[in-house]
């Protein structure tokens, strides 16, 4: 008899708990826009192959596609050297010396630094710079009169981010 009493009591408690514990979530709205806290354009986790790197680099700097012969020859030169970062820098420097690179003049760069920095990020990294990035480059170029577009382009072309897509 005593056992039946406890059974009823436990059953009653279960019913009360199940009725009071499960409630539908109230979705709060705060009238704020959704914002991505991580810049997805920064997620580049695939390394460019030698062929991809050189054809993209050539197009970036010359604003036209590299010929297939030139692509193969350049790719072989990259393969012939162990330190890819180093040999890529030499290739960039070789292009810079050719006089065929399409880039703004020093005056054009300094006339509108904001646009130059944004355009350079778009050209090399296919994304717009963050405010911190833009501020760094604008301040750095303003503070250093000997910085030319060529030096900026060289820094971008030899950066880690440019090796990835």
């Amino acid at each position, binding site marked *: 008899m005593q056992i039946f009493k406890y059974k009823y009591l436990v059953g009653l408690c279960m019913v009360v708990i199940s009725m009071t514990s499960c409630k539908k979530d109230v979705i709060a709205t705060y009238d704020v826009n959704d914002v991505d806290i991580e810049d997805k354009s*920064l997620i*580049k986790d695939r*390394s460019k192959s030698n062929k991809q790197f050189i054809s993209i680099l050539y197009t970036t700097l010359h604003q036209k596609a590299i010929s297939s012969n*030139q692509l193969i*020859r*350049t790719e*072989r*030169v990259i*393969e*012939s*050297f*162990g*330190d*890819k*970062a*180093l*040999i890529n*820098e*030499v*290739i960039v*420097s*070789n292009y*810079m*010396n*050719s006089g065929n690179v399409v880039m703004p003049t020093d005056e054009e760069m300094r006339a509108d630094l904001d646009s130059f920095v944004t355009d350079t990020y778009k050209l090399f990294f296919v994304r717009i710079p*963050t405010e911190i*990035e833009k501020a*760094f*480059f604008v301040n*750095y170029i303003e503070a*250093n009169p*000997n*910085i030319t577009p060529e*030096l*900026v382009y*060289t*820094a*971008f072309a*030899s*950066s*880690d*981010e440019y*090796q*990835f897509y």
Partner: protein
Amino acid sequence: MKRRDFVKKAGLTAAGSVAFPYILPSGRLFAKTNAELADHVLYVLFAGGVRQQESVLQQYLSGSQNVDIGGNIMYNMLNGTPPDKKIVYGTTPANEPTGSLPIPQLLNTTIQSQGLLFPEVEAVNGGHYGGMTSLLTGNRSTAQGLKVRPNSPTIFEYLRRHRGFKASDVWFVGSGIGNSFPLLNSSGHENYGTEYGANFVAPSITFGNEGVEVLSDAKIYHPQEELEPIFKMREFLNNSFRIKNGEVQGIRNDEDEKAHIKKFIRETFIKKQTNGLAGPPVQGGGDLTTIAYAAEVMKYFKPKITVLNLGNVDGCHGNFSGYLRALHRADHGLGWLWNYIQTEIPEMAGKTIMLATPECGRNLNPNPIQDENDWYGYDHSGDANTRRVWSMMAGPNVPANMKVGSESNQIGKTTDNVLTIAEIFGIKDAVLGAGFMDGGTKSLFDRI
């Protein structure tokens, strides 16, 4: 100090030195395990499959073409008199038969007399890539695939990790970029890998016509006014991107080393344009060109280790006469290089040990392909003759004029060379302890 304190501190110091690895300023984890035997090593992966019969056994045509003419066509390296008939291995004077003028001997004392010869050594792998991988890793490399980095660490990685060498101390000068050779400058092993890899260069391409087009007009930026801002901006960009260490493929030199290497590239192009490159008396492309550029690398960087890969001999598949010429030229080039080190690079003269070993032999029986002299070619398809090669070593602390083993008494294997180099640089125990050496591998010094 009280006796009790002294005993306690001495005990703690002893326990600490046993329990923790010895971390040196260079970042390496292990102290040297034996005394160094030389400051520099030149390690020659000698040609691309060499038969014992035409090299160390000095049989010339008698061991291959049923023509009873023997003789030594590698007389800078080996003791022995050259053939006196049917000379095809030399240079070609005007209006004379091809190869009829032997190249004069360069060394007064052969490398064999200067050092140690193992005339009968086991080649653990009968293919080019597998054979070269074995020569560089000390591992049999049976599960090694093509077009991938070696599975086991290379001698470059052992030396950089355990001996603390910089990237520019360690060079691999290759005969080309075929057969996955550029991948041999480091393994893909997770504890070693490209972080400890060697600088690789294939001079026939880097400084050949393609290199002239792509590299020779590179600017040298002013260190303070131009390079410094480039570094500063790039550092900012790299900090923003923050990739993990090792995600950028290939080996990396530090900025000082990079500047040094870029200067070398520029100066080498200038030397090439002005005919100022060093080189053996007989030119002619291929291995001799590779040897000439290896000399430039050694003169400029004084590397701790230079690995030189030659490959022209592989023409033996279809041109036996060309094979003899390639062997003769490789001997000429190596004799010249050894002399160049002793006379033109004072920092390395008398402080360099040279090792030379073919990566594999060639078959006992010929294939059906005949050359201009109706002589048959030889492949390397894995018969017992393919597994027969020789090893040679000369330099400080190497016994002179000594032969270990004979045709009927095989002593040594191609994997021994890695452990030998490890011993030369004082890290033999560390390399053995890493656990990748092929079973039974020994330092050649321990084979004596």
